[in-house]
C-alpha cells in the first residue's frame, strides 16, 4: 500500500490549489475533527508547536484565531471568519496568516466533506489566493523546517530518477 495518501493539485500559473484526502471514518467524525477546537488542536500542527485555539466559533459568521510556536520563539497564527458552515457538508472561510513583518491579504478556503461509502469520508480543501505569486510563495513556505517529512514510494522514485539523471 502506498503511503502517499494526500493529493496536492497546484497547476502552474494559477492562483489556487486543492488538497484531497480520504479518511477511514464517517463524515460526522471527520467534520467534528475540523470544527471542534479540542479535536483540531490534536492534529492541525505537530505537537511540539503547541497550537493554541484562542477563538473558534465554527458557525456561519463566526470567527477563529489559532496561534502556534514558530522557529526562534516567534509566534505565528491564523485568523479569519467562517463565511458559511453547513454541518457534515462544507465550510467556507477566510484565513489570514499572522506573524510576518508585512501584512498579508487573506485567502479563501472551501473544505468539502463527502461520504464515499464504506464508512469513509473524502475531504477536498480548495484554496483561492489573491495572486499567483501569493500562492507560489505560500506553497514554498511549506518548506519551513517545522515538520517531519515522510518519504513515500513516489518520493523515493523521484529521488532515484533525479540522482540518475542530474550529474
Amino acid at each position, binding site marked *: 500500500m502506498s503511503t502517499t495518501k494526500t493529493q496536492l493539485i*497546484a497547476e502552474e500559473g494559477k492562483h489556487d490549489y486543492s488538497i484531497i484526502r480520504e479518511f477511514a471514518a464517517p463524515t460526522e467524525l471527520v467534520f467534528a475533527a475540523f470544527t471542534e477546537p479540542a479535536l483540531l488542536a490534536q492534529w492541525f500542527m505537530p505537537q511540539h508547536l503547541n497550537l493554541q485555539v484562542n477563538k473558534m466559533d465554527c458557525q456561519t459568521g463566526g470567527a477563529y484565531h489559532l496561534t502556534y510556536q514558530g522557529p526562534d520563539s516567534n509566534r505565528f497564527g491564523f485568523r479569519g471568519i467562517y463565511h458559511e458552515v453547513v454541518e457534515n457538508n462544507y465550510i467556507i472561510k477566510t484565513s489570514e496568516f499572522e506573524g510576518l513583518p508585512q501584512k498579508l491579504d487573506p485567502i479563501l478556503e472551501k473544505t468539502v466533506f463527502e461520504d464515499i461509502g464504506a464508512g469513509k469520508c473524502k475531504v477536498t480543501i480548495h484554496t483561492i489566493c489573491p495572486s499567483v505569486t501569493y500562492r507560489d510563495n505560500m506553497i514554498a513556505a511549506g518548506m519551513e523546517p517545522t515538520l517531519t517529512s515522510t518519504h513515500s514510494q513516489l518520493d523515493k522514485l523521484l529521488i532515484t530518477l533525479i540522482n540518475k539523471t542530474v550529474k
Partner: protein
Amino acid sequence: MRRDVFQAIADPTRRAILLLIATQAMTPNALAEHFDSTRQAVSKHIKILTECQLVKQEQTGREIFYHLNPKKMKEVADWLEPFRQLWEARFNQLDNVLKTLKSKKS
C-alpha cells in the same frame, strides 16, 4: 490542454515509463515492448508525460527517442513536495484522532 504534473505521475504505467527512460533514452517501439497494453495506450501515456514536459523527444536519424526532462522532474520533487508532506503529516495525525474517536464511539 493544460495537464497537471501530479496527476500525470500518479498513474503506475506512467511512473514505469519514467523509470525506464530514466536509465536510457528509448524509441516508442522499445518502450511499448515493456508493457502488455497496446502501442496506442502507451503512446497516450507518453503524450501526457510530454505535455507535462516530464518527457522530451529527440529525433535521431529516422528514429524518435524519448528522454526524461530532469529539470522538470526536479521541479516537481523540490517545489510542491514539502507542502504536500506538510499536509500528509497533518492528516496522519488526524487519522490517529479519528481512530480514537471511533473506538470511543463503539
